């Protein structure tokens, strides 16, 4: 478990550092470029309230790289951090042949993935 604790701690360090760098560079790029395709940041007198993760889909952010793409990448890095830690715990419980906790960790991981990937797809 000690090794796993250190690895989990390192995963968190990387996830947070990556997301902070991506968030900060995303904002700076949006300001420097004046916005993103179809989004005017510098031209608007306030925060554009019609811009959100639903109105600016991921596919558009990938097809037209901009500051929003970087912010989305930061969001993925951040959400992936706890998922990675739970996956690591699952691996450790399986390796230790701790059946009860392997099932528990698998359930939590599955519930997270269903909530993040499947339910949003069903709601579309």
């Amino acid at each position: 478990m000690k090794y796993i604790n250190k690895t989990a701690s390192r995963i968190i360090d990387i996830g947070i550092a990556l997301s902070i760098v991506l968030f900060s560079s995303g904002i700076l790029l949006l300001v420097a470029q004046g916005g993103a395709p179809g989004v005017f940041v510098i031209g608007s007198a306030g925060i554009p309230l019609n811009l959100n993760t639903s109105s600016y889909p991921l596919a558009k952010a990938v097809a037209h790289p901009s500051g929003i793409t970087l912010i989305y990448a930061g969001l993925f890095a951040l959400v992936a951090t706890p998922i990675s830690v739970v996956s690591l715990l699952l691996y450790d419980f399986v390796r230790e042949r701790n059946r009860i906790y392997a099932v528990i960790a698998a359930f939590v991981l599955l519930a997270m993935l269903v909530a993040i990937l499947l339910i949003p797809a069903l709601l579309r």
Partner: protein
Amino acid sequence: MRVVGAIIIILLLEIFAAGIVGGLFGSLTGLGGGAVVVPILSIYMGIPLYYATGASLISTIATSAGSARSYIKTGMANMRIGISLSIGTVLGAITGSLIAAYVYSQQLESVIFILFGVVLFISSYLELERLLRKKKAKRIRPDWSTRLLGLNGSYYDDVTGKRVSYRGARWHFAIIVMYLAGLLSGLLGIGAGVLKVLGMDLIIGLPIKVTTTTSNFMIGVTAATSSGIYWEHGLIQPLIVAPAAVGVLIGALIGSRLLPRISGKEIKILFIAIVVILGVQMVLRGVGIA
């Protein structure tokens, strides 16, 4: 053009500053950054509540993971107990985020404003009570969950210089509280750490150092679970979430550095009182007075 450019830069800086204040207060009061940043963004900056809660939810992942990392490394956060209780929080988070999406789609923001204010009151009271209570070691009688789930562990206490062993029980009751904590987290975009700590402290009977550190690990798992539904319903605004999350993380880091230097309870009580005022404002906004 330059003027409007300057306006947006100032607004982004204001969101960043709100994040710092939220992270700082959240860390000093023990209520978490989200509990403070949502009222600041929605009441004082006029940002729609759904974007404020979306920004808070994402900030919560960053701050909880950041707070948990060192305790996970030293083993003070009990990952086994944390993952077993996460069953309740993730299921609660799914329910809560679906309700949030429905409530916002029906334009019932006022319900969230009122509920948020009430949760701030209750959380503040519980945190205050914990601060003033004289802690006595509890003896919890072991039950089936103690044996089956191995609800035990030990940690090195820096203050006493001794290794502290502990064991817990009544997991089946705690999981209900965890479901409720997850539901509030998904519904309001907060960590609901106070409720998680309460469940582990009063029901399972774990030492407070273990409950607070384990709760931080669980908050990240819970908030990440809600993120997909928030994303799909457009509750996340990139220009709000990015500066807010970076700000909250910086504020929480400053708070964690300041915390050991604040010895008097009076200062913490003052901070909690400010959070209560924010709670009053949220309720007033919800009933249409403010």
